[in-house]
C-alpha cells in the first residue's frame, strides 16, 4: 500500500506513482453540506488486491464512483494509470472505463437479458466479433465463475450468489486492468461468500488484474487481500497488510476487527441527553 509521499522526494514519488494504477491525491468530496471524503491520499498498486474497509457511510462506495469517473472530486486529483480522471473528455473517460470492470453490490444484471446475453453485452457493444467467437468468449467467462451450465437462465432465476458470479463474469468480459468490487460479500450465505472470495483471489492472480474490494467483511476479506485500508469519515485511519491490521492498536481498527458495539464508532447516534428527551432533567 502506498503511504503518503514526502513532498521533497520527487524522484521517489515519480517512481512510486508509476507503480500505482489508481491514485488519490488530497481528494475532497461532499454531497451538499455532507462531507464524504476529506483530503484523501491513497494509491492502489498494480496487480495487487486491496480492501477498503469501513463502516456504512464512511465513503467507500464514493471512492469507487470517483475511480469510475461517475462523480468528480471537488478538490484534489484522482488518476487512473497516470491520467487525471476529472479532466478527461467524454470519449477518453469511456476509453478508460473499458479498462475497468465493476461488480455492483446487487449484481446490476440486465433483467430483460439472459445470463449469456448479460455477459455478451459488453463484448457485443465494444468488439465487432463473429457470433461464434462471442459465444466461445462468453462461455469461457461463465466457465471461469462456474456458471457455464446456467447460461440460458434469466436473472430472476438466479440466487444472490449466482447473480453476483454472473456479474463478475460480465465485469471481466473485456479483460480489464482494474476490477472494483462493491460489497461483494453482502447478504451471501457462507458457501457463496467463500466462492466469491475464492474467485476474486483467483482472478487477481490469474489475470494479474488490480483489484479493489470495498467491504466490511473482515473474516473473508483478510484471507484474500494483499493490503487493507481503513476508512472512517472520509479519512484513512489505518493501512497495511491484514497481519499488520490484526496486530494494530488503532482503536478504530480494533473496534472494527473485533466487532465491539461501542468505541470510536458510537453505538448511539448523536443527540440530546437521554434524560432530557424523557423530560427527567432538572
Amino acid at each position, binding site marked *: 500500500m502506498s503511504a503518503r509521499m514526502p513532498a521533497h522526494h520527487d524522484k521517489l514519488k515519480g517512481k512510486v506513482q508509476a507503480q500505482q494504477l489508481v491514485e488519490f491525491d488530497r481528494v475532497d468530496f461532499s454531497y451538499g453540506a455532507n462531507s464524504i471524503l476529506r483530503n484523501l491520499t491513497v494509491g492502489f498498486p498494480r496487480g495487487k488486491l486491496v480492501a477498503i474497509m469501513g463502516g456504512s457511510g464512511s465513503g467507500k462506495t464514493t471512492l469507487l464512483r470517483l475511480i*469510475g469517473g461517475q462523480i468528480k472530486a471537488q478538490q484534489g486529483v484522482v488518476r487512473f494509470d497516470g491520467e487525471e480522471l476529472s479532466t478527461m473528455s467524454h470519449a477518453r473517460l*469511456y476509453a478508460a472505463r473499458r479498462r475497468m470492470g465493476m461488480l*455492483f453490490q446487487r449484481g*446490476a444484471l440486465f*433483467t430483460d437479458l439472459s445470463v449469456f446475453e448479460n455477459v455478451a453485452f459488453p463484448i457485443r457493444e465494444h468488439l465487432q466479433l463473429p457470433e461464434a467467437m462471442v459465444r466461445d468468449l462468453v462461455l469461457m467467462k461463465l466457465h471461469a465463475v462456474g456458471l457455464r451450465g446456467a447460461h440460458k437462465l434469466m436473472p430472476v432465476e438466479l440466487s444472490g450468489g449466482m447473480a453476483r458470479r454472473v456479474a463478475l463474469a460480465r465485469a471481466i468480459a473485456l479483460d480489464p486492468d482494474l476490477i472494483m468490487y462493491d460489497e461483494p460479500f453482502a447478504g451471501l450465505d457462507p458457501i457463496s461468500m467463500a466462492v466469491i472470495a475464492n474467485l476474486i483471489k483467483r482472478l487477481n492472480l490469474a489475470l494479474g488484474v488490480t483489484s479493489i474490494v470495498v467491504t466490511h467483511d473482515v473474516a473473508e476479506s483478510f484471507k484474500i487481500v494483499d493490503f487493507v485500508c481503513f476508512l472512517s469519515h472520509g479519512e484513512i485511519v489505518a493501512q497495511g497488510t491484514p497481519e499488520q491490521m490484526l496486530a494494530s492498536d488503532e482503536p478504530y481498527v480494533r473496534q472494527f476487527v473485533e466487532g465491539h458495539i461501542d468505541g470510536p464508532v458510537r453505538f448511539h447516534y448523536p443527540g440530546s441527553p437521554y434524560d432530557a428527551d424523557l423530560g427527567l432533567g432538572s
Partner: protein
Amino acid sequence: MSTAVVRGLRVVGRLTVDGVWRLGAASRFMGIVLLRSATTFRRFRLLVNEVYFAGALSLIIIVVSGLFVGLVLGLQGYETLKRYGSAEAVGTLVALSLVRELGPVVSALLFASRAGSAITAEIGIMKSTEQLSAMEMMAVDPYSRVVAPMFWGGFISMPLLAAIFSAMGIFGGYLIAVVVIGVDAGAFWSQMQSNVDLWDDIFNGVIKSIVFGFAVTAIAVFEGYDAPPTAEGVSHAVTRTVVTSALAVLALDFVLTAFMFTGI
C-alpha cells in the same frame, strides 16, 4: 405584512424556482439525448425494438378507444345534425373532430398512460437497480444505448398511433351512422371527402401529434432518468409522467389550435 402572506410568498417563490430549475434540467437532458442519438439510427434494431415497445404494444388500447370514440361521435353527431336536416354531414363531423382534435389529443393521453408510464418505469427501475450505472462502467453510454432509442421509438410511434386512432374512429362513425342508423354511405363519404382538407385539417392534426409525441416522450424519459433510485421515487416519477404529460398535451393543444385554426 402578516406571517401567513410571507409564508405563502415563500412557497410560491420556492415552487417557481424549483419549476424553472427543473425545466432547465429537462432541457439540458433532452439536449444531451438529441446529441447522442446517432447510435439509435446507426443500430436500427434498437429503434425497431422501441417502436414495438412504445407503438405496437399500445395498438390494442388505441384501436379499441378510437373505435368507441368514433361510435359515440357518430351517435351524438347524428342526433344533433338530424335536427337541422343535415344528417348526411355526420361523416364530416366525425372526420373533422377526429383528425383535428380527438385523434391527436386522446391518443396522446392514452399513449402517455400506456407507453409513457412504461418508459418512465423501465428507466427508473434500471436506475434504481444500478443497471444504468453498470452500463456506464462498461463504457456504454446509457443516453445513447437506452434513453435515445426509447425517446425516438416513442416519438415515431405517436403520430402513427394518432393516425390509427383517427382511422378507427372514422370507421366507428361509419358503422354507427351508415350500417346501424342507415345514413346514405355515398353521402357520408363524399361529404367527408369534400369538407376535409388535406393540409388545413389532416396535416395540422399530424403536426399536433408530432408535437405531443415529442412532449410526452421527452417527459417520460426525463422523469425516468431523474427518478430517485427508490421504489417510492419510481412510483412518483410514473405518476408525474402521466399527470405532466396530460397537462402538457392539453395546454399545447390549446396553443396549437389557436395558431392553426383561428388565425391568431
